[in-house]
């Protein structure tokens, strides 16, 4: 079953030209979390606050032994990448202390994520130093003998940003040395995972009542929640999952804006749903902290609930001229290792093309979703669409400018598995199609051209060598004609429905890998199968449904599987 964010209206922050993209990905993030995606990484606009947090430096430059501890970089016992930090305690209170954090803002809450393998038989203590207030304990690392992720938080003090640091020590040492391994130590301000109004992923107490009511045993909606958004996941009922704005509240129950022009749009009654409450207007990264530097490059990493645990990162890339925001997106087809900056390790298959000659996406290091200059006619809001399936085998985000007349200001793409066939393993079916970073503002990201910024032309698909190195790929289109003078495209040559059944005819997009023959054994073709993506005729109006709402026409010949219960607003 497919799940959607369908036409969720999200206001841009008026007057500050961020293009609304941070608001949009903030909403998408929380929808993916209720959909079962695991948070694996986050950063604020400064990126890494802790040098060598991923322990990949082949030295101890950024680490300081406490008391008489022995420190070393280890390449055998590693959680991610090539190295971990090995800390051997030799006395009570011995351990390791980091160098000073960098670019710490005053009086802000910071998060620490840390992977540790503690088999010492003793609990180790995690402390943070604040310049004005001294060292405080923020948590502990128990001895459980396995790599485990720990999360802590601290609040920076009012002094300058320097002299904040972290210390991990063996306070309980008693004559027996012990060794702990540390890896992937991240310090960041959270603009996503810890930045919300109510989290009921664990409680799973969401209740949908027909036609458009939402409530929860553990939360009573009030008038203050009007205008906020509910991200909800219903694994059973088609059309229930989504990101909905709350229209009104009464007696603890929220009425959701279904954004449908249908005569009687309705949700299906359901209980036990995972959900989150977010306030995009108040909390989305840009809104939360208008200090551009902190938020303009923030981002997150998520791991799919799919069995392959494929990974995806999104990070904003605010245009310095101040009129729009890109969102860079990069992926791996499995749970590939990555560094503290979110980049995948060079020995992993991913869309980071600097890592291997096979890792291609058309010449850019990241894929891009790009917002539109809000200073132009479409400035007031965005309309967010998102499609995935039960187990997160794929995602397809689409962000549309608010003004329907500016149809070409849309951004979107696809990432995920596209179906096994006799020519392709599951790994090889993994594809990513997003426009490149070289895009021009206001152009058609969602199009099937062979040049420029067409998302179809900037693809990558896993190859059949190594771990499945990502290889240049494109979505082919259909047409006839033997030369440019008489060439006709499927998208325009089909201008009416089949007269026998009054239906359009859509085709699963066909993917060509390594179509210029760069890599031995790699050229193949396959259909985009099982992902509800279709290629078809251009309709006169974008973002409309066809064939009795069976399909959603996005633009330029791209369609999604849709369902009869939802008609689009104009």
């Amino acid at each position, binding site marked *: 079953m497919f799940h959607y964010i369908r036409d969720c209206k999200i206001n841009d922050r008026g007057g500050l030209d961020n293009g609304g993209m941070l608001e949009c990905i903030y909403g998408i993030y929380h929808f993916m979390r209720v959909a079962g995606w695991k948070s694996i990484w986050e950063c604020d606009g400064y990126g890494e606050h802790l040098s060598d947090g991923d322990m990949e430096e082949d030295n101890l430059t950024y680490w300081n032994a406490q008391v008489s501890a022995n420190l070393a970089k280890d390449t055998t016992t590693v959680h991610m990448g090539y190295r971990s930090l090995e800390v051997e305690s030799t006395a009570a209170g011995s351990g390791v202390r980091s160098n000073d954090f960098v670019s710490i803002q005053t009086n802000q809450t910071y998060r620490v994520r840390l992977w540790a393998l503690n088999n010492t038989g003793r609990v180790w203590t995690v402390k943070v130093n604040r310049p004005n207030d001294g060292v405080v304990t923020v948590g502990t690392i128990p001895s459980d003998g396995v790599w485990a992720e720990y999360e802590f938080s601290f609040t920076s003090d009012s002094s300058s940003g320097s002299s904040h640091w972290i210390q991990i020590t063996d306070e309980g040492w008693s004559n027996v040395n012990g060794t702990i391994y540390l890896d992937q130590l991240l310090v960041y301000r959270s603009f996503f995972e810890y930045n919300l109004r109510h989290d009921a992923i664990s409680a799973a107490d969401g209740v949908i009542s027909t036609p458009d009511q939402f409530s929860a045993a553990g939360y009573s909606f009030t008038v203050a929640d009007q205008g906020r958004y509910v991200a909800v996941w219903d694994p059973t009922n088609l059309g229930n999952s989504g990101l909905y704005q709350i229209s009104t509240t009464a007696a603890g129950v929220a009425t959701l804006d279904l954004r449908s022009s249908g005569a009687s749009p309705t949700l299906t009654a359901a209980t036990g749903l995972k959900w989150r409450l977010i306030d995009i207007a108040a909390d989305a990264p840009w809104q939360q902290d208008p200090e551009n530097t902190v938020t303009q490059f923030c981002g997150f990493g998520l791991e799919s609930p799919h069995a392959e645990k494929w990974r995806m990162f999104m990070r904003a890339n605010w245009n310095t001229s101040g009129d729009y925001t890109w969102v860079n997106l990069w992926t791996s087809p499995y749970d590939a290792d990555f560094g503290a900056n979110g980049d995948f390790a060079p020995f992993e298959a991913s869309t980071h093309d600097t890592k291997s000659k096979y890792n291609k996406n058309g010449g850019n290091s990241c894929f891009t979703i790009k917002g539109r200059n809000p200073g132009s006619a479409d400035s007031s809001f965005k309309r967010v669409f998102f499609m995935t399936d039960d187990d997160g085998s794929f995602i397809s985000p689409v962000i549309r400018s608010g003004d329907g007349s500016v149809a070409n200001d849309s951004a979107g793409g696809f990432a995920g598995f596209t179906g096994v066939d006799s020519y392709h393993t599951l790994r090889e079916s993994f594809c990513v199609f997003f426009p490149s970073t070289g895009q021009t503002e206001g152009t058609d990201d969602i199009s099937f051209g062979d040049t420029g910024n067409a998302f179809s032309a900037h693809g990558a698909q896993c190859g059949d060598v190594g771990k499945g190195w990502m290889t240049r790929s494109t979505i082919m289109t259909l047409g006839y004609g033997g030369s440019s003078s008489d*060439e006709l495209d499927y998208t325009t040559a089909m201008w009416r429905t089949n007269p026998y059944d009054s239906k359009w005819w859509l085709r699963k997009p066909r993917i060509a890998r390594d*179509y210029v023959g760069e890599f031995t054994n790699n050229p193949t073709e396959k259909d985009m199968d099982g992902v509800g993506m279709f290629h078809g005729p251009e309709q006169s109006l974008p973002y409309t449904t066809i064939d009795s709402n069976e399909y959603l026409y996005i633009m330029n010949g791209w369609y999604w599987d849709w369902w009869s219960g939802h008609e689009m607003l104009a």
Partner: protein
Amino acid sequence: MSDFHVRNVRVYFSGGDNYDDAQAFMFVLRESLIAAQWQIIDDESDPAYNDPGNIFLSLSDAQFAAASATEIYSATGGFDVGMESGIISVYGDGTAAGNANRGLYNIKKVIDSNTILVDERNRVAPWSDQTGVTIRVFQVDNPYIANSRNLVFQPPAASGINVQYQLTINSTGSQFYLYAYPLGDYATTKLITASHVFTVPYNISSFRFNLCLSDGNDPHFRNLWYWYDGTGWVGGAFGKLSQCAAADPAFFIQRLVNQNQSYGWDVALEHDLKMLNETYAQINANIMYYKDGVNVDVGASRERQPLARAINSNRAKTFRPLVLTEASAEGGFMRGIHPMEYCHSSWPDLAEYGTDYWKMGYNTIVPRNGVDDPAPLQSTAW
């Protein structure tokens, strides 16, 4: 039941007016249709079809033996050396056993009056033991069938497919035309498609004839002939699109060769189909090819790198293309799926494409009757 194949049958014809291959083609096609249990609806009773100068011998007791791979025996007999270089048509009867050895074969040698050897390059599968088989030995040029003749034919009655196809030779024999009656109304209203014209070569005396006829049981109803005439390939196809609406009489005819004697498998532009539309008016339709993006011409895309890989024997994935009606007020809608296979590949033309297909020119894949079906010959020599 299965498809009926003719492979590499050398059709020889002599003298005449140098435009004899249209007549020769119609004759050998008619014999093939009969052998395949297709129905001859109208042949205008041209006397050439039954003239003793063309029909050397008709027997109903031919014997085939799996152990004698190219030998045919008849107790009645009547073979003589004058039949060498003639063609023998082996009729099926519509049953699996009765269809086992059907086909057309060149007689390679007459052993005696009861025994002949045929050319193994015509045999699309190993023979089975079979007795009581109807055969006919024939040639096509003594006399020729007349110019301007029509031949109307229909799939086997057992198939239940109600469509007629028509071949018409022009008044000089320099061209012939192929039509379809998609509504199966040849006997009444005669709603006919536009024709595809096939301009025949001048001054040739033989060609290598290949044919595949569907028995109607395959979900993809496709039929095609192609011959090599010493200068290139000539081909035509007819069949029905699949995945059409139930009410759609989606029968088509197709030309696989350029109209103007530019021999060789045709370019994509000419892969147009003649059909009737929903008002039963004549309409063209076109095979859609994959290409690199919108506003990219198909020819350039197809001629790009092969999308084939070594671990798949260098064969690209095949596909049955969509068919779109022409860019006109009457067209502009997707009609269905073409029954023949196509591919994107630089795989050599005329080479095998797996056990079931031969790769022809311009990425067309033509049916093959399994691993024992020999390759189409690009030669008219013995």
